[in-house]
């Protein structure tokens, strides 16, 4: 049985923790709104980009001459995985979910006898992966300094990937991130970006008879590297919205749990206070009786 003083101390400490989590929730809510806005603003660009690439790749008749970024290197031996996580913790299952998804993918590719290369973006991903997959991690990138996701960062990552691709360092590239569905649901995603998989095969309307200037494959070979950066940027935007959403609900839960704990402790505190009083009374009475 903890003493009254101990209980009192615990109540105060839980209360101050509650204050912190509440404040964190507020901050996350404010940041979430901004991140969500950014994610929405960034959508038209990546959608248009996808459409154009889809149109272009449909009109390329000679698949042999298609750029390697689209067609692939021909084999699937080396996988490059880009794992995008947050730089900060305390956001519920956000980082763990991505890592889990990535790990199951890693195990699958390993069991198929393919080799693996990993680039982590965001320090939390590196922290969690370095123990098991330390040798496979070829690079860790972190954007701790930039507060919001910006295109330049994404472009830098994209350039690195393309550089590696041109040096034939890998055949297939997959990115892992959380897609923001709503505040409480974030879905971990894996998306293959090299070679490009046109995920949704839209029915091609007849009117899409574009004129291309210069030739299709020349445009494509210019466009595809940009598309890599765009996809990464999209992933970063979705990720930052997801991170804030996840943190917000995690902190909301924490605040509620702290409230329950305070209630329970207060009841305990009052009980032991009353017990102490009763005990004192009994002592006085029995003392008086014995006289």
């Amino acid at each position: 049985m903890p003493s009254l003083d101990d209980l009192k101390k615990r109540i105060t400490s839980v209360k101050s923790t509650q204050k912190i989590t509440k404040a964190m929730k507020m901050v996350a809510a404010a940041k979430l709104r901004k991140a969500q806005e950014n994610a929405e603003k960034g959508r038209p660009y990546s959608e248009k980009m996808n459409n154009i690439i889809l149109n272009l790749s449909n009109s390329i008749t000679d698949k042999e001459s298609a750029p390697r970024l689209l067609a692939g290197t021909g084999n699937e031996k080396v996988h490059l995985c880009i794992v995008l996580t947050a730089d900060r913790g305390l956001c519920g299952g956000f980082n763990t979910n991505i890592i889990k998804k990535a790990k199951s993918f890693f195990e699958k590719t390993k069991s198929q006898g393919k080799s693996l290369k990993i680039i982590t973006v965001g320090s939390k991903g590196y922290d969690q992966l370095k123990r098991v997959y330390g040798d496979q991690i070829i690079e860790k990138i972190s954007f701790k300094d930039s507060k919001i996701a910006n295109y330049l960062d994404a472009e830098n990552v994209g350039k690195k990937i393309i550089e590696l691709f041109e040096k034939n360092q890998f055949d297939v590239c997959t990115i892992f991130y959380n897609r923001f569905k709503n505040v409480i649901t974030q879905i971990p995603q894996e998306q293959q970006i090299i070679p490009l998989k046109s995920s949704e095969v839209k029915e091609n309307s007849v009117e899409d008879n574009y004129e291309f200037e210069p030739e299709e494959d020349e445009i494509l070979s210019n466009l595809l590297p940009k598309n890599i950066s765009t996809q990464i940027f999209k992933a970063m935007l979705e990720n930052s919205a997801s991170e804030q959403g996840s943190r917000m609900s995690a902190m909301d839960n924490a605040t509620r749990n702290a409230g329950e704990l305070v209630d329970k402790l207060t009841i305990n505190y009052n009980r032991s206070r009353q017990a102490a009083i009763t005990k004192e009374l009994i002592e006085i009475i029995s003392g008086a009786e014995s006289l």
Partner: protein
Amino acid sequence: MSNVFKVEIINPEKSFLLKEDVSEVVVPAYEGDMGILKDHIPIISFLKPGLLRVIDKAFVEETYYVEDGIIEFKNNCLSILTSNIFDIKKMDRNKIKDILSEAEKDSQNNNISDQAKYLADQKIEVLRSLTLN
């Protein structure tokens, strides 16, 4: 009959410009400047560094400096996707000089491909013409 069409310029971060009533847009396409009017046939092309001019129905012209991008014209809607675009009016001389000196450095670099060199030279040319005005 009006001769206007819609133009939208989109950045990765946001929509940069949306106009419903432009009569002509001149884009610095990779193979040369290209003027686009209403009912142009659907086209996809990409841009080199240069000046992008948007002329609205009252023939008021707005000029932007773009570094790269892709354009798509379809159903009288011109979409321009670009990551680097600046309004000329809002660019001050120092900024132009900064970009210019960087481009000059790129151009001096011998390790780059012919295409990259061509683009860097284009950039220098455009920026120099801007500083003269």
